[in-house]
């Protein structure tokens, strides 16, 4: 892949670098010059005592700044982004910064100083930057006030720069005044910097967590090892909400290492994300002993009323509901249905995306140690405040006795991990019952079957075209199968990207059916936008081509006057050379979606052999996120999210049959592999006019529809459901 900077950004970065060189700063435009901050393999440990100025940072006697990060590091660069934002405002060389994870016990029980500990919604930078930068700015101003007081000068005359305070003949490092600064209350808190004042933000900075991730030292939740710790393997009813009839305990009794068998019980009425399903845990001296014993145990389940549900039965239900009026989620203009009914030219199409699972590479796990004095927890949760509250609730203990040790997280992707599965409660319950620290690890099969899934959707779209070939009216009717969080947040994600489309279609009506299903569902990197992006951005091509419009020109025309969209489309046009005029077997496709406030456009170039073999040659990504604080990390996230959603669109899809998922390991639930990964080229086209978009998710949604649109041009075949690789793409 290549990272191509927007001219505007690179010019600004260059200017900053030149100023930096004159001022003796250590940052350069070239990566080897930008020395990264550090993080320890066990990032929950305190690296240095230092003196705390506020909850976010402490400064050591040698000037080392410790930044405490309340968000999880799941590969999206939270440690780097948060510490960069603090260093920017504090004005310290980034090489003097070290990062640790914030103390959740302190946060949850004593005043919530970090405002939020959630790490989702691509929000750490776009939404949290004001209060994070504020913490750094406040500390800087208090250091200046402390120096002013000691030196007998006005604090306006004190300069804080690169870890040094100075005023006239006076000069000292931050460390000298940190104790005094900690006691100072400012009369007025400073404003955070505007982007034109940045010296660090906006530069390509390597992520701080990389060095500990290339030598095996980074500690993930699953790596927790405690004195006296034992292990549990669990098996819950494969059909969610089913119950346990009987199990053969004699099969495991007396086997080497077996310590206990614990029944896990769902509680009536408790059907939240983290609540228990009915199941069995085998506890042993090693996980291998626990798991092999569990495999030997015959378990009889009552699968309950949902054991006949399948992808096919849901598809039939969706077909039935396509003829039934749904809940209206958004309406624009006049009587859309009437316009369609009386129009001379109408097109309609049915689309479908199936269930997908998070399949983080680190299988779901948790370690809990329960004692009379305190409870210690390691859980791969996106919001580390959640395991603390779940354990306190499960054990009915005072939350002040619960200590969460934030580990590195082996992928999160919106699933919430240990915060939105039952695993943390399971570990707490088992530890309480056996009186020892317990590590619960789910097998990959358990991980896939007991995860909270991405909800499937069936959508029917209909449009009427006017004399100029542009749509005069459009309807969508979506059928979702949801339960749990995705049901609660349904209205915000169910129609996202469709009902919120930017296109100036004068009359629109969007309906949905939110069918309650037994499979628990939740958010999944790019929620709603990924499912709906595939649907609406292909239907846009269908409308454009039916009206004899070029797909790119259509999108430019239909977003006229919308600067953030026009900026992306123009850039996409400039860098991709998009054309529909290619020989059969070759195709280019485009798509553009807003996700987490960023507008992201893609252009895919594909070739398809006559026999139907698809090759994606290149994906060009153009993003408008308003601003970018670290273009290097941004490009990594965009490449990763392209892979994420292409993986599902090309190879994914959970096979729901008899109420449960049949493809529950990587031999049958297929993910993209290195030999299938296309080239990705990232471009920034930033509005820089006051709004901020996210970076962790928006690259995904527009990629599959761009590929599918390209496939159409190559083959004449419109692929309206995924996985794409199950479709016959051969052509004559």
């Amino acid at each position, binding site marked *: *892949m290549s990272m191509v900077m927007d001219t505007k950004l690179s010019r600004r970065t260059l200017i900053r670098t030149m100023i930096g060189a004159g001022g003796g700063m250590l940052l350069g435009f070239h*990566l*080897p010059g930008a020395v990264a901050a550090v993080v320890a393999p066990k990032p929950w440990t305190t690296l240095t005592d230092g003196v705390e100025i506020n909850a976010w940072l402490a400064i050591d006697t040698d000037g080392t700044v410790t930044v405490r990060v309340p968000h999880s590091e799941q*590969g*999206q*660069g939270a440690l780097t982004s948060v510490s960069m934002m603090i260093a920017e405002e504090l004005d310290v060389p980034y090489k003097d910064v070290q990062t640790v994870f914030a103390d959740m016990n302190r946060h949850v029980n004593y005043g919530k100083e970090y405002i939020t500990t959630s790490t989702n919604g691509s929000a750490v930078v776009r939404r949290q930057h004001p209060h994070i930068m504020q913490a750094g700015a406040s500390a800087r101003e208090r250091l200046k006030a402390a120096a002013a007081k000691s030196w007998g000068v006005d604090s306006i005359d004190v300069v804080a720069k690169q870890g040094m305070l100075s005023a006239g003949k006076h000069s000292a490092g931050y460390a000298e005044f940190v104790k005094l600064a900690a006691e100072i209350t400012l009369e007025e808190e400073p404003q955070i910097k505007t982007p034109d004042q940045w010296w660090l933000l906006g530069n390509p900075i*390597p*992520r701080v*967590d*990389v*060095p*500990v*991730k*290339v*030598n*095996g*030292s*980074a500690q*993930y939740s*699953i*790596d927790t*090892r405690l004195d006296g710790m034992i*292990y549990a393997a669990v098996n819950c009813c494969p059909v969610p909400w089913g119950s346990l009839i009987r199990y053969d305990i004699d099969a495991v009794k007396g086997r*080497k290492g077996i310590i206990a068998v614990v029944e896990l019980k769902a509680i009536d009425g408790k059907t939240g994300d983290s609540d228990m399903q009915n199941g069995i845990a085998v506890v042993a001296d*090693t*996980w*291998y002993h626990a798991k092999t014993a569990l495999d030997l145990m015959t378990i009889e389940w009552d699968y309950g009323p949902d054991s006949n549900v399948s992808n096919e039965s849901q598809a039939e239900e969706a077909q039935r509901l396509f003829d039934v009026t749904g809940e209206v989620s958004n309406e624009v203009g006049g009587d859309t249905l009437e316009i369609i009914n009386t129009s001379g030219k109408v097109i309609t199409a049915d689309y479908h995306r199936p269930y997908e699972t998070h*399949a*983080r*590479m*680190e*299988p779901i796990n948790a370690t809990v140690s329960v004692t009379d004095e305190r409870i210690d927890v390691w859980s791969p949760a996106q919001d580390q405040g959640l395991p603390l509250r779940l354990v306190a609730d499960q054990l009915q203990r005072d939350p002040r006795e619960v200590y969460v040790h934030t580990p590195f*997280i*082996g*992928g999160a*992707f919106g699933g919430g991990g240990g915060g939105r599965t039952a695993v943390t409660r399971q570990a707490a319950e088992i530890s309480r019952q056996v009186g020892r620290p317990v590590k619960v*690890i789910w*097998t*990959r099969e358990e991980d896939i079957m007991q995860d909270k899934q991405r909800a499937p959707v069936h959508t029917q779209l209909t449009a009427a075209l006017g004399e100029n070939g542009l749509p005069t009216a459009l309807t969508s009717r979506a059928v979702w199968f949801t339960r749990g969080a995705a049901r609660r947040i349904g209205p915000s994600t169910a129609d996202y990207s469709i009902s919120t489309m930017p296109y100036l279609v004068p009359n629109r009506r969007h309906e949905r059916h939110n069918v309650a299903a037994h499979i628990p569902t939740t958010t999944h990197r790019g929620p709603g936008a990924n499912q709906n992006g595939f649907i609406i951005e292909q239907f846009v091509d269908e409308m454009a081509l039916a009206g004899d419009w070029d797909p790119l020109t259509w999108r430019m025309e239909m977003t006229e006057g919308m600067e953030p969209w026009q900026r992306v489309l123009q850039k996409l046009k400039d860098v991709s050379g998009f054309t529909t005029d290619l020989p059969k077997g070759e195709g280019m496709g485009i798509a553009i979606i807003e996700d987490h406030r960023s507008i992201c456009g893609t252009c895919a170039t594909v070739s398809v052999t006559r026999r139907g073999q698809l090759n994606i040659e290149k994906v060009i990504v153009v993003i408008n996120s308003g601003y970018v604080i670290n273009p*290097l990390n941004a490009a*990594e*996230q965009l*490449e*990763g*999210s*392209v*892979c*994420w959603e292409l*993986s599902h669109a090309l190879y994914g899809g959970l096979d729901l049959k008899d109420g449960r998922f049949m493809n529950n*390991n*990587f*031999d049958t639930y297929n*993910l*993209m*592999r*290195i*030999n299938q*990964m296309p*080239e*990705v080229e990232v471009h920034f086209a930033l509005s820089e006019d006051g709004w901020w978009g996210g970076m962790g998710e928006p690259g995904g949604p527009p990629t599959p529809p761009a590929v599918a649109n390209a496939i159409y041009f190559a083959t004449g075949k419109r692929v309206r459901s995924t996985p794409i690789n199950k479709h016959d793409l051969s052509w004559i």
Partner: protein
Amino acid sequence: MTINLTINSTAYEVDVEPETPLLWVIRDNIGLTGTKFGCGIAECGVCTVHIDGRPVKSCSTTVASAVGREITTIEGLSKDNSHPVQRAWIEHGVPQCGYCHSGQIMSATALLSRSPKPTNSEIDAAMAGNLCRCGTYLRIRKAIHRAAEIVQDSKRS
């Protein structure tokens, strides 16, 4: 039963059943947690280690079959990140969540030892058994080329 293993040039004596997967012996009995568990069926590669220099999926390799052979885990490459593959991984900022990268690095190291200047298709063939859910594949490819360069450069100087 008592089993003797050599891991990263250190001798270990463990009391496990001979059919125990090497992965769990490395992680739970010996305590080297850099090698990860991912699928248990040799499909994802996060458990990749070397046995006599060859990459194997330790979740599906019995401990008995590793007796008398040299086992290398991620911890055995270098502790100070000085190994050319580790250096290349850092230069290209390859890991995101990082969970799969012990396995990725072990597969890459084995590839470079048998093919010092691998082509893209050789890389794809050698690395196709290692899944990465964060989608860092493009950087893996680049970093392997870079590691090959680092090795070449050090031989020249």
